[in-house]
């Protein structure tokens, strides 16, 4: 009984310790294409994509790849696709549209017609970089679901709810120089035959870099590149990060503590910019005030009080 109690206690404690980064709410999906318009996308000068009856078509004609206007770093992209018998398209991730193939990678979408569609080049593969571990259903003429999760150094692709590909980009030599943030692109259909197509619908993204809990996890990353990415995301989120960072500072990981301490300062610095956004300032001041009351460690509390002084000074005058 005692033992069990301890286990429960330990479990509770572990939960408390981890709670600084545990997800508290499900953040919303953002639609990139809901059938009505291409407002989120930059259509190339030669076209190549068109909306027909709420579906986004690319056919075997001349045209440009289609890229999102916005760049994303860490996200879950979900979409549905359908290929004709010789359909050949793909989803470009973390790329610079100026040189999409050099800077990013393509998650392949390929109908089973070419002779060279091996595991490294079939649907679901990171084309030419990482082969599929599980070959997906490649049937043409029906809708398939695809989910691409870019999670710092891990890229995971699922087709029809089964994982096909899991890549740790640190271990893929050919991906060494790839961007870790970029636009998302849809490749214009490369099949040259008349009447061939690839089409898409229900394209959604969940931007993980606006999810405070996800961003907070980045503070524990040993790779400074992803840590620095989390710092930038946290700074952009501002007030929403304050309490989580205060909790992180109360933890035991020196890496996360020092990052949280520095970024809290940066958030307050941005909030106090006389030329800055007043809502950002107001929200940060409020969040700081709330976090100070709940701070469990004297060191953290003192720090938050000091930071509050900096921002209070700003509003009092």
């Amino acid at each position, binding site marked *: 009984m005692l033992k069990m109690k301890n286990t429960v206690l330990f479990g509770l404690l572990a939960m408390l310790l981890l709670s600084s980064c545990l997800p508290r709410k499900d953040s919303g999906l953002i639609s990139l294409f809901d059938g009505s318009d291409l407002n989120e996308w930059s259509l190339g000068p030669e076209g190549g994509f068109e909306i027909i009856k709420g579906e986004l078509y690319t056919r075997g004609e001349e045209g440009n790849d289609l890229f999102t206007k916005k760049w994303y770093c860490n996200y879950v992209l979900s979409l549905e696709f359908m290929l004709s018998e010789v359909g050949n398209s793909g989803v470009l991730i973390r790329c610079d549209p100026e040189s999409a193939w050099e800077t990013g990678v393509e998650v392949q979408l390929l109908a089973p017609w070419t002779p060279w569609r091996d595991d490294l080049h079939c649907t679901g593969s990171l084309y030419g970089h990482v082969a599929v571990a599980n070959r997906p259903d490649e049937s043409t003429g029906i809708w398939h679901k695809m989910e691409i999760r870019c999670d710092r150094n891990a890229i995971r692709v699922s087709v029809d709810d089964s994982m096909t590909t899991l890549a740790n980009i640190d271990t893929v030599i050919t991906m060494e120089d790839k961007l870790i943030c970029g636009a998302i692109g849809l490749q214009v259909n490369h099949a040259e035959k008349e009447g061939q197509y690839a089409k898409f619908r229900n394209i959604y993204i969940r931007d993980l870099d606006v999810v405070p809990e996800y961003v907070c996890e980045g503070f524990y990353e040993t790779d400074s590149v992803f840590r620095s990415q989390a710092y930038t995301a946290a700074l952009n989120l501002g007030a929403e990060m304050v309490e989580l960072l205060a909790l992180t500072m109360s933890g035991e990981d*020196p890496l996360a*503590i*020092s990052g949280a301490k520095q970024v809290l300062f*940066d958030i307050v610095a941005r909030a*106090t910019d006389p030329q800055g956004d007043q809502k950002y300032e107001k929200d940060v001041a409020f969040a700081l005030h709330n976090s100070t009351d709940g701070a469990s460690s004297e*060191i953290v509390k003192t720090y938050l009080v000091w930071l509050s*002084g900096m921002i209070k000074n700003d509003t009092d005058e």
Partner: protein
Amino acid sequence: MKSGTNMKRRSFLKNTAIGLVGLPLLSSTYPYIAPSDKIRVAHIGMGNMGRAHLNWFSDFADVETVALCDVDEVRLGEKLKLLQEKHPSTKTDTYTDFRHVLDRKDIDVITCATPDHWHALVAIMAFQSGKDVYGEKPLSYSVHEGQVMKRIWEENEAVFQLGTQIHATDNYHRVAEIIQSGILGKIHTVRLWKTGGSPGLGYPPVEVPPDTLDWDMWTGPAPYQDYTPVRCHGSFRHFFDYSGGVFGDFWCHIADIVSMSISPKGLYSIDTRGERPWDGIADTPRWIEADFKFKDLDLYWTTIPPPVPGAEKMNIGAHFEGTDGTLTCDYNTKIIRIGNETMDDIAEIPKTISRSPGHQRNFLDSVKSRQQPESNLGYAREMALPMYLALISFRLKRKLKWNSDTEQFEGDPAANYLLSRAYRAPWSLPG
């Protein structure tokens, strides 16, 4: 106000100094100086600079090393041993709390080589106890501390020398003479640089401080943090909790030559670029570039040497641009370049500035004469001020406007907030 006892002791020292000047040749090689005529010195902070202080001061015939003080008993013991080896007859007491040193009425002078966040309070409390101070750079942790230091220094008519020993060199005096001679015309731009920045220092776990170290006292007025060795001896400077990094450390060594030569006035704008380290808990600049606008001068600081001839070989240097020519000089090699020519000197420029007898000697002479030494508090504070403002701009990541009359930033309350830092109890600055 200073105590009557100290007043008397000072008058006595002053009279003695005059007496010695009157009879200069009585015993020129080893002048006998009666114990009562000696300047009684205590050293606070026994790290590497403390050891330098100890070596420098204990070698003067008119100095009696009375006390050593450090919050680290190991360091204290080591330095006492060094002193005893060098001067076997020394009778020196040791303390771990500097307040006990300041309580002693028989001490005339303290030198301070504590970490930066202690500089101001140690000096201020020393002034209040009637002592003169030879204090290490940087002058203080914050701008506000410097202001209070100056006030208390004036109120107590104390003597203060900042430990920028480079100031005393013939080279710095000569550079100032060349610039003041007008040969370069009117100086409109100065470029200062110091290569290297703060390392990250990794992510060490917290530890229990050693029994021999009073970590709470070491922390003093700074915000309390759990102990880890890199926060303490030798690398504390890379934390904004205690200091301003390599930039804050070296600023006054090379900005000194600018103040000596042209004492720029009317600073009104500060803008910086830079980054923190990415590989550790340290948070002071890994690199920093600062642009300062004075009334008649643009001053630039960079972490890499500016693109001017000769600068690439200098780790810490200054480049003056005038209407009629340029001059490049540095901290280490003592090379002077005029335009593209390297030279030892320009013989036709007369010596107009009297030379220092050495930085520590200059201070000790001042203690006797009651005249302020060359790097006195008024001079040193003005010279150091832009450095603090640049660090605030670095931390806030924005350009700042400065009013040099009111010593306040304009339209930026948060920047003004960072001009001072509340002390951790029980420590406080005089109101």
